Structure formats: C-alpha cells, structure tokens
C-alpha cells in the first residue's frame, strides 16, 4: 500500500516552508517514527518522522519551498509501487 507524507496541517502558517534537507534518498527503507527530513518555518526547524514503515520516494528536493498539507514524499510497502 502506498501513502503520501504531507506537511503537517497543524502548522499554522501561510508562508512558504523550506525543505532544508533529506535524511533519506529514493528507495531507502524507513521505519515508522524515523526522521525523514528537516523543514524550516520562520520560527523553528522541524524534523518530520515517517508515519509508516516502508520504502521511500521523494517528491520534493532539498531547497524547495512547500506549503501546509503538500505531499513531500511517498511511502510504500514495495519498491514496485513507487516506480523507483
């Protein structure tokens, strides 16, 4: 099963959020709860953990600006689902 990880909706900002860096790369296997990337708002840097265990495909690259609820990566049970 494939799921998208989105910028948490709880962040209350209309300003762009910077994707500072990824700790993982396409095709990596990650465990639920492990830190995937660092986002930066005006107020703080924020590590985003994996919501489920699986293989990763990045949808955004380092330096991109993202908005609340925007998908930043996909996580799937198999690499085939991601086309990686």
């Amino acid at each position, binding site marked *: 099963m494939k799921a998208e990880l989105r910028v948490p909706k709880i962040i209350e900002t209309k300003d762009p959020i910077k994707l500072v860096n990824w700790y993982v790369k396409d095709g990596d296997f990650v465990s639920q709860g492990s830190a995937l990337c660092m986002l930066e708002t005006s107020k703080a840097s*924020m590590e985003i953990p994996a919501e489920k265990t699986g293989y990763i495909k990045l949808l955004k690259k380092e330096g991109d600006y993202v908005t609340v609820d925007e998908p930043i990566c996909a996580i799937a049970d198999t690499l085939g689902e991601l086309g990686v």
Partner: protein
Amino acid sequence: MIEALPKPEWLVVRSASDRRLAGVQGAVERHRLNTVCRSAQCPNIFECWHRGAVTVLILGDVCTRSCRFCATAAGDPRGFVDADEPRRVADFAGDMSLDYLVISSVARDDLRDGGAGVFAEVIERVRDANKGIRIEVLVPDFSGSVEALATVVRAKPDILGHNVETVKRLSAGVRDRKASYETSLKLLEATKRMDAELVTKSGLMLGLGEDRGEVIDTVRDLRAAGVDILTLGQYLQPSVRQLPVARYVTPEEFESLRDAGCELGFRSVRAGPFVRSSYHAGESYMEMEWRTSG
C-alpha cells in the same frame, strides 16, 4: 531585505501526527475554539498537544493591538463577543478530561472592560463543569483598568499571568504603542494587592536586542512587583512581517538566567529556548507548590 539569522542546532523540534495529537486537534475544531498554540505558530505545538496541553485563546482571533513580535491578526472586532464561547471552553475541558487549562485572549480595547467579564465567565464555567481543574489565565493589560483586573481576580483563577514581554528599553519598539512596561508592572502589583494569595506569573522573550544586565533588571522589577513564576524564552520571528531575531540565546545562558531568577526568590522559573509563558504551565504550578510545601 535583511537576511534572517541561521537557526542554531538547539532550535529543532520534532513533528508528530499521532492519534493523541489528532484527538486534540479534533476537539479544538469541534468546539470551535481558537488557540494560542496555532495563532502564535508555536513550535511546541506537537509536544504540548501530544500531552493534551492546550492554551485556549478567547474573545476571538482578532487583536486590537499590533505588537511587532506577534503573528495574531490585528483589527477591530467592533465589540463582537461570542456569548457561547465560555460554555464551549468548559465543554472542551471536560471532553479532554483536563486537570490544568491555560486561558489567554487577544487584547480587546474595543470592549469597555477589555474582555475581563468574559474571562471571569469562562473561569466560572470551566470550574463549575470540571471539578478540581486548575485554571491559569494570561490576561492583556486591560488598558491599566483596575476595575477590569478586579473582575478577573474575583473569579479566582489559580494563576494570573501577564507578560511584560521585553526589557524596559525595548518595550516601545516591540509592543503596541498602547502597551507599556510600567502599565504591565502595575497590573501585576495590583493583582497582589487585591489578592495576596493569588499566584502571579510573567515572562519575557529574549533575543530582541537586550543585554544580560537589562534582563536582570527586568527580572528584579518583576520580583519587586510580587511575581511568583517567571518564564524566559527565545523570541522567534513568526514571519517576515514581524521583528527579526537579533540574537539566539544559548541554552547555557538560559540556564544561568534561570539560576539568577531562582536566587531572586521566584517560586518557579522556566528558562530555555522553547519556553513560552504557557509551556509546561501545569508543571510550573506543581513545582511552585512543591517548593512552597517543602
């Protein structure tokens, strides 16, 4: 355009999206409440909401002041008061089985009592519906009105907080022109005169351009005003529209200031990069009770 200072490594938070956090978010939305946590874009929101700690923002989400550090929308609510809000806050506390609740508000200079009557009603409704709950209020300065303050004091919150926000020299440039360092100190002093048993609390943000001596002077002023609980935290710029951060204060400096505050006789001092006035508020209250009883 002035480039923002790079964030130091100690200003990293971890987001979460678990069931408990979603439960709090759902309850906040179901009861149609505003929260300081979201309005102020607080970086502690993940940790606090995971623990079920929410700071409710009453009297709407439009503030009649334009402090230069704050992201809350400024405007004129034209006297509008949501008469059902006190009931919803009480119901929220019940649904969440809260044993400690912090209630704050926007400034409401458009209301004759600055919103003090609504504060009192919320305190009473929450307490009536939630036996044993501790209630902390973080109030605006009510434009210096002693009558308005007395309305809140008579409702007997467990803690009355009012933030001086910054040191005296920077106050005029950081806070709205209707606010002042002196008015804030007088409000805190007046609270103690009205009810010596009522615990008072205040805090300031560091990193706005103050020096250590000015912080110590402010802390002394707060202690002289009878303040029991002190909070010191890092100012964080909510967006490019607010004041930039002048300096990131190190955790070690916060630790040193915490010790200085304790030596001055505060009953509880919280100091650290992520400390805000309501951060771990319940724990501060318990620490104060423990120190008092010990």
